[in-house]
């Protein structure tokens, strides 16, 4: 061969070597980028939740109130909601996933029937979460509702509580705080009203007073009936409210300047018939703060009020139990397919030995297969749990989304994931945001740890 050829050959080889190096470096770079992505996710969560970690500290974790309007953040309702839904779902799903694992791993590993079951289980994992949620909302919820009704799971008024999510009251665009400044009475109607605040006894013409917010001082009533122990202020108020409504009041604000204790409170056990108009009680301090300018007829105060009786608007059937039900279906495949693999890996000599000793099939499963696959089955359950903890959409759609502490398995609630899905885009200030991100951080850590433990167990099991 001549010189030219050799030269070409060398040049060619250098090019190839360079390409080879570029290729190898690209592979290394991509492996590094993979690490950067995951570490970056972790760091971003930590950095963005720092304001909340610093200012709220550990009390964030067991604070019971989540009230972004007043900048109070306690994550306990969501932690509890997540734990309740996940573990309830796990308990429901375990018998089924165990049955599938045993059936496909031991009883019937081959054949069209087991193929059908295997594919069906895989499709359960494939159905998008939002479709489970939609189906649950329109099919499962009414079923649970019927169930709850027949069990009488709710006592009347169980959910009658004032809730900042549904009740708002502002005067001249200044928001009053629920409970500390005002509260709607338990028989207040479910409605929204915007109007001028006018004293109840105002001499303005009816045409002006129609449909506006009327204001009533309880002082004369209380003073007149001071010494009557049988006097029921609630009866008197309902009567006045009904009268005022007949006269055209759009809503009623009550206040008390007499200094006599009126003992009015939001009574959730109250069974008085609902009124049509909103009736709110303004506490004395708040009255002085927001209303003193309005005692004349000038109409200088504009009120905007929404009172809702949650008992009327929260549909039955949604809540932690329904969320757990739909979740339990969704997580079955994870424990089932892993369990199947584990059971298949049990060495046949072990099983055959037991059969040779005269064991029945059940006895082989109980005394040979179960002890052998114990840790593997546990790992499958852990993977299912990891799935359940992070599942968002289906749960968000059926859990009811309230920030209150769940009172029973049937009460509406929120999980960590669902509260993020609901409120992240609406978070109006930094602390609120970072409190939500902290929930995400907690979710990240918990699911990663659970998954890692599960995978470690599987690895040890398969290496043995």
């Amino acid at each position: 061969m001549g010189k030219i050829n050799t030269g070409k050959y060398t040049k060619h080889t250098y090019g190839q070597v360079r390409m080879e190096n570029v290729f190898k470096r690209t592979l290394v770079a991509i492996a590094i980028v993979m690490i950067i992505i995951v570490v970056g996710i972790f760091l971003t969560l930590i950095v963005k939740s720092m304001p909340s970690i610093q200012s709220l500290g550990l009390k964030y974790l067991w604070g019971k109130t989540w009230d972004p309007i007043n900048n109070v953040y306690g994550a306990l309702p969501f932690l509890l909601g997540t734990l309740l839904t996940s573990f309830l779902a796990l308990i429901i799903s375990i018998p089924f996933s165990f049955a599938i694992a045993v059936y496909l791993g031991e009883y019937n590993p081959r054949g069209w029937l087991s193929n059908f079951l295997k594919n069906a289980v895989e499709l359960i994992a494939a159905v998008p979460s939002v479709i489970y949620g939609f189906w649950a909302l329109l099919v499962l919820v009414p079923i649970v509702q019927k169930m709850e009704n027949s069990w009488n799971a709710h006592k009347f008024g169980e959910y009658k509580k004032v809730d900042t999510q549904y009740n708002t009251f502002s005067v001249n665009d200044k928001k009053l705080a629920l409970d500390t400044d005002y509260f709607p009475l338990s028989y207040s109607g479910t409605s929204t009203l915007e109007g001028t605040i006018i004293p109840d006894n105002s001499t303005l013409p009816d045409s002006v007073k129609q449909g506006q917010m009327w204001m009533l001082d309880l002082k004369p009533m209380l003073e007149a009936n001071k010494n009557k122990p049988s006097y029921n202020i609630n009866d008197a108020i309902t009567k006045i409210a009904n009268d005022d409504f007949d006269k055209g009041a759009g809503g009623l604000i009550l206040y008390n300047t007499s200094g006599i204790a009126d003992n009015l409170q939001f009574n959730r056990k109250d069974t008085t018939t609902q009124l049509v108009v909103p009736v709110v009680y303004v506490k004395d301090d708040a009255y002085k703060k927001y209303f003193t300018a309005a005692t004349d007829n000038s109409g200088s105060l504009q009120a905007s009020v929404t009172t809702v009786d949650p008992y009327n608007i929260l549909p039955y059937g949604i809540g932690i139990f329904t969320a757990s039900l739909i979740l339990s279906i969704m997580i079955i495949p994870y424990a089932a397919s892993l369990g199947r693999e584990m059971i298949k890996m049990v060495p046949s000599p072990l099983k055959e030995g037991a059969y040779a000793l005269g064991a029945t099939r059940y006895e082989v499963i109980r005394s040979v297969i179960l002890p052998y696959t114990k840790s593997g089955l546990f790992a499958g359950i852990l993977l299912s749990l990891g799935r359940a903890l992070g599942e968002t959409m289906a749960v968000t759609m059926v859990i009811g989304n309230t920030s209150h502490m769940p009172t029973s398995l049937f009460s509406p609630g929120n999980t960590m994931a669902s509260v993020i899905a609901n409120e992240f885009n609406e978070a109006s200030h930094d602390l609120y945001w970072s409190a939500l991100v902290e929930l995400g951080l907690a979710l990240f850590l918990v699911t990663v740890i659970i998954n890692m433990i599960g995978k470690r167990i599987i690895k040890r099991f398969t290496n043995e």
Partner: protein
Amino acid sequence: MSKPKVGIQYRLGKSRLFQGTIFVLAFVVTLPLMAIIAYIFKEGITKINWDFITKIPKPVGESGGGIANALVGTIIIVLLATIIAVPFGILCGIYLSENRRGRLSYWSRLCVDVLQGVPSIVIGIVMYFWLVKPTGGFSAWSGSIALAVMMLPIIIRSTEETLKLLPDTLKEAGLALGLPYHKVILRIIVPCGFSGIISGVMLSVARIAGETAPLLFTALGNMYLNTNIRRPTETLPHLIYYYASSPDENWHNLAWGASLILLFTVLLLNIITKITTRRWNIQL
């Protein structure tokens, strides 16, 4: 066995009872799946017509309209996510299968495992801070990147597992012929494992096509047809979530039709994947 008095008939009976219980419990699980598919099919099939796939949703109260915006949006976002995730995922899978030991591959593999377990809503939050907040608005491309991150673990794992199955002699033969490393990998190894890799890609597409949570904070949603990837874009799962939670009957109808299309696309992708993976026996 500890009680010798127990007769064989009793033990066999117990065994049969157990078998029966297992059989019933195992097959009961298929009922909700069939119920969901049947219900979605029944409700959805009547809603799908030409208008449904070519028009955009009507405002509340008006009947009719379609989900063209969500269909186009889903196609754009999923396609873009696939374009981003596939090269990255395959190359990372190649690295991991080529370097079974070593510190970098250990950590990289660990990160893939971690990423697989991260809840999708958390990915949504992080992508919001990485992509949406700095660029000042929700966009289709940020949604695509969020979905691409979710696709990565599946593509990487399937590529790695597929390539591990190939005999080393294949690579050695190529190298012995004087082929450079990258050509051995890209021209011999990858084409040999092609169907395994492709099925991993399809499976990952099937998984993320129905994802809603990461899109809530990235692509957001859009009432109108939008093909600009720098603007908020509607997707099928987001449309279902949004419309299912609304009380409007017409919107429910749109959600039913959208559910049917989404469900069947996802199931079809899964079934195709199953048929192609049968050869490779990949564990995902």
